[in-house]
């Protein structure tokens, strides 16, 4: 199957009348690294959560592996979610539990509820959990309580938990927003490497346009719950950024100084590099 996920005209209106998504359609294929960018409140988190059914669309539908999420029974939904790993901004690890237990929790949908209830994980569950921990480099912390770890390490535990699901899709909701810039980049590199090794469809929410350009194959820009850009990272231009972030929210020169661009760190993603001028006409 060439399409793992399809969104058909998805709208989400929360109780209370807040419209988070308006008629979003998109398709996601295996092996893509997609970054969704947009301001806070643009609907990024909601979009990501419609993809695994944590948020139900109020209109439209999402098909995951060819099955409709809207018409799925709770049991079907759990079955579908098993193949979708998710990583969160604030890690969502159980702080009082050990690292290994946190990662084992990613195996819940692979093991019968009664076995997991008594903590009777299968040999395979433990092996998978252990190899995932090794993969993100925190295996030596397996028996340490999660709250003893640094933010970056906790996020790696979160990634290991998602990988323990042996997923086909990885969703990451602002995975680096709570981390310092250096750790953030390291985590993004880890995600990219995992995506490349496994050919895993990876969809990441980011508010940092710099990181988006550095890592994305494809960028989706959201503004006020609508898709305003969907294309290759290289096709993103300053006008588009102004569209996504608002004209007075995006300052070309402030965000990407000439020195940065000439080093080519961010510039190569922005078409003509080293031209900090276009936005002067935009800002007022």
């Amino acid at each position, binding site marked *: 199957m060439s399409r793992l996920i399809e969104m058909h005209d998805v709208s989400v209106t929360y109780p209370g009348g807040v419209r988070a998504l308006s008629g979003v359609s998109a398709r996601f294929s295996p092996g893509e690294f997609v970054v969704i960018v947009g301001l806070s409140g643009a609907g990024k988190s909601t979009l990501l959560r419609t993809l*695994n059914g*944590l948020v139900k669309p109020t209109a439209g539908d999402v098909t995951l592996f060819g099955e409709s999420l809207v018409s799925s029974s709770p049991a079907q939904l759990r079955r579908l979610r098993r193949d979708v790993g998710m990583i969160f901004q*604030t890690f969502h690890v159980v702080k009082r539990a050990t690292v290994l*237990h946190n990662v084992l*929790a990613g195996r*819940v949908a692979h093991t019968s509820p009664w076995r*997991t*209830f008594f903590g009777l994980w299968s040999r395979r569950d433990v092996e998978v959990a252990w190899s995932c921990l090794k993969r993100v480099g925190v295996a030596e912390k397996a028996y340490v309580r999660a709250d003893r770890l640094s933010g970056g390490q906790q996020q790696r535990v979160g990634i290991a938990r998602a990988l323990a699901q042996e997923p086909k899709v990885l969703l990451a909701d602002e995975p680096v927003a709570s981390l310092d810039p250096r750790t953030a980049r390291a985590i993004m590199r880890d995600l990219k490497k995992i995506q490349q090794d496994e050919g895993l469809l990876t969809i990441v929410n980011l508010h940092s346009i710099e990181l988006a350009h550095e890592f994305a194959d494809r960028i989706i820009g959201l503004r006020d719950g609508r898709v305003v850009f969907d294309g290759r990272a290289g096709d993103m231009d300053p006008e588009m950024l102004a569209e996504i972030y608002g004209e007075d929210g995006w300052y070309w020169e402030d965000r990407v100084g000439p020195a940065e661009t000439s080093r080519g760190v961010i510039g190569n993603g922005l078409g003509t590099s080293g031209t900090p001028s276009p936005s002067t006409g935009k800002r007022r």
Partner: protein
Amino acid sequence: MASSSYTQPSTASPLPQLRRLKLLWLVAGLIVAAAYALSARTTEFNLWTIIRDSDLFFQLIREMVPATKERWVHLLTNYLPRLRGPFLQTAQMAILGTVTGAVLSIPLIVLSSRNISPHPAVYTVAKGLMNLLRTIPDLLYAAIFVAAFGVGPISGILALAVFSTAVLAKLTSESVEAVDPGPLEALRAAGGTNLQILRHAVVPQVAPLFWSHCLYVFEVNIRASTVLGLVGAGGIGQQLQLMLSLFQYENAFVIIVVTFLLVAVIDGVSNRIRERLV
């Protein structure tokens, strides 16, 4: 708009409000004084007569505290060993009451925590039941169970169990409602069932608090079970009641002192463990 109301001079002076506040305090004070006077008159409670007749109290104390060394030796060698049984029974009542309460509280905790309760209606009913159970003091439960099941420790254990259930459910459901919701979302996203979410996201966060609450309830139950005997629900309290009614004040004194020491030691140990748990 906002600026116009801001610049508008305030027409109301703060003085009348201040005067009203003073009047309120005065009225409240008068009501309390009147209620006190009325209650004192009907119950013939008078602080002055109590102070005047306080020698009656000290008289009792003098009768309770053994005066001579021989009496002390006699009490410690002859009476104290006979208290082993009743004290053991008190401890057993507290243990059985606490453990039974802990087991019974678990379903009530799940149903009466807003964030994990299966349905808002179930939540409302469970919370209501919990609060109702908790409004009745343990001594009253004991009196009711003694009336129903007769004199003896069974009634005391039942009273402690019901009271422990209510207190544990109350304390722990508050802990459950305060858990970090993040792991719950993570487990749901991983395809977990509600039971799995409960077991792997809620339980690890709450378990240390639950054990701590259990120890606290055990402390309370030890203290309560020393008193339950007064209404005939077994344990050391029943022995104390007996000695007081037989005017065996020296024996009663030994019971009170040992109870005090035992409760102090158990509280101390339990506090130490609870500090390490959380």
